């Protein structure tokens, strides 16, 4: 890992250079308080102060709706696709980079998912440091900093960014604008250390995750699941905005007149009533409490057993988005009581 500094007022030059070489995706303001990842047009539109986008960057690698192949009357399959341009996503916070790391594991478990990795292998990441708001839970989930996945990470200091270059791709990007990067001075290193302390002290939201997997299993029959499932609207918003929810549905979309059809996969949600319904009418998760509980168990423990840690990145999107005001921190606190 190499460290440099970049003067803040030279960031536009750097992003312009990256945009010339790659397809650059950046965070932009969408509504009054909402942000989204979009293709870069000009620097003035880039949001540097956002906390979280509505939809996590997973949409760029794992699209909400995706055609897998088309098939004609003679059952000739066409799975061709346009060669994707190499893109660089700028502005990912540590939680979202952790989200990508978890998706990488999910789409490799039992073999690499070709559609996912076709895009994933053509994406680079420039991370950006952030300060927490009232929903941020990354410190509790141990995802408040990251040492993998990204190619370049920018830590915001007063006048400069402390730039961490982790990969050869990151180095390629830096070399697109050679004059911009300097060796960090002693003062800048000191400032970087102070910033870490300040950020660390700003977290107001804490969730005790000690033995959480055990507790959720022990409290499998707790009345709390019933109680919350009465409040939950089962709209699936928490799933759609989750950076690590990777469930999908596969279906055929036929063109009856032409006689051909497309096979599509689209995001799915375990909160949906017929998610575990099988032919013959048996539903393996037929009741609302079962479905509500399943999301918590799978997020906090299920994935953990497979991959060694919970699959919640603490990004805060589910709590911010839930129309019924259900908050994971509160649910977990009640489980602990």
């Amino acid at each position, binding site marked *: 890992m190499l460290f440099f500094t970049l003067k803040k007022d030279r960031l536009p030059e750097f992003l312009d250079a990256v945009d010339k070489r790659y397809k650059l995706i950046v965070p932009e303001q969408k509504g009054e308080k909402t942000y989204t990842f979009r293709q870069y047009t000009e620097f003035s539109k880039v949001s540097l102060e956002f906390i979280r986008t509505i939809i996590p960057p997973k949409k760029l690698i794992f699209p909400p709706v995706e055609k897998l192949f088309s098939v004609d009357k003679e059952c000739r*399959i066409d799975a061709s696709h346009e060669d994707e341009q190499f893109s660089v996503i700028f502005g990912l916070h540590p939680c979202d980079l952790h989200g990508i790391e978890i998706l990488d594991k999910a789409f490799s478990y*039992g073999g690499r998912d070709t559609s996912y990795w076709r895009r994933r292998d053509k994406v680079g990441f420039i991370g950006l440091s952030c300060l927490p708001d009232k929903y941020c839970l990354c410190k509790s989930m141990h995802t408040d900093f990251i040492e993998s996945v990204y190619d370049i990470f920018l830590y915001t200091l007063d006048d400069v960014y402390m730039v961490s270059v982790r990969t050869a791709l990151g180095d390629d990007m830096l070399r697109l604008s050679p004059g911009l990067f300097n060796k960090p001075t002693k003062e800048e290193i000191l400032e970087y250390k102070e910033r870490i302390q300040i950020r660390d002290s700003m977290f107001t939201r804490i969730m005790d995750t000690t033995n959480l997997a055990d507790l959720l299993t022990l409290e499998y029959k707790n009345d709390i699941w019933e109680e919350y499932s009465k409040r939950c609207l089962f709209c699936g918003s928490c799933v759609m905005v989750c950076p690590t929810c990777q469930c999908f*549905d596969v279906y055929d979309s036929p063109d009856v007149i032409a006689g051909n059809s497309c096979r599509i*996969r689209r995001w799915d949600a375990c909160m949906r009533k017929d998610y575990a319904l099988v032919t013959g009418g*048996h539903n393996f998760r037929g009741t609302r409490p079962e479905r509500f509980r399943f999301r918590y168990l799978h997020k906090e423990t299920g994935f953990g057993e497979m991959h060694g840690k919970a699959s919640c990145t603490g990004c805060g999107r589910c709590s911010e988005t839930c129309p019924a005001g259900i908050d994971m921190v509160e649910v977990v606190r009640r489980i602990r009581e």
Partner: protein
Amino acid sequence: MSLIPVIARLEEKRALDHNHSLFRFIFKEEQMREKFHFQPGQFVMLSIFGVGEAPISITSGPDEKGFIDLCVRKAGRVTTALYSLEENGKVGIRGPFGNGYPVDKMRGGNLLIVAGGLGIAPLRSLIRYVLWRREAFKEVAIVYGTKNPASLLFNEEMRELVLRRDIKCLLTVDSAQDNESWKGHVGSVTDLIDMTGMPLMDTSVAVCGPPGFYKYVLEKLLSLGCSKGKIYMSLERRMECGEGKCGHCVIGHKYTCIDGPIFTYWDAINLPEIF
């Protein structure tokens, strides 16, 4: 891993009863016919293009090369469309998926196969595996129960098995009222387990049947001293991919499609959501 199927041709369909048929498929590409190896208990994702895809267990034996047989109940959209497919019609097949029965562990010991209804479909593959190398197993017993004589799948084959001397095959029906020619047993498969007279302490048991069926069979097996680690159950869940990605078949922390569909009873009771 990819969600793109290969093309196969429907070679033959044979009705087994009013809503179960046996479908034989041959891969279009010769290379695929050679390459397609599977274990008893594995399944494929079967595509009817324009309708969708469904997981179906393979019912032919792994030593029978060049084709695969699927025993299918006419029940949902894909299977209904399959029933209206003409011979020589084309389908898509992905797989094989799942862990299959641990035949290497089962070899060298006694084997009891317990089937209920359509549960015979994956077990028939195991039976054919065993018959192909009968000397690799000690005592082998098969017990199979259905609602009535008319719903006994693979009727002739099963009757041939009953006549064999190197295995013990016993059949039963819940009720034989509609069929006076039924000379076999009437009652539960658990009665048949007793009738095999097989010592079950060190026997591997493969069980497959409808959800309600497991409860009685498992109770019976445990009462006869079977080890929970040697009872192999084949579980059913909704599946969209078969490759451990779509999430639909998750039970607790396991994917039925790659960690299963064959689970030991011991593994199963350690999964939340099962019982």
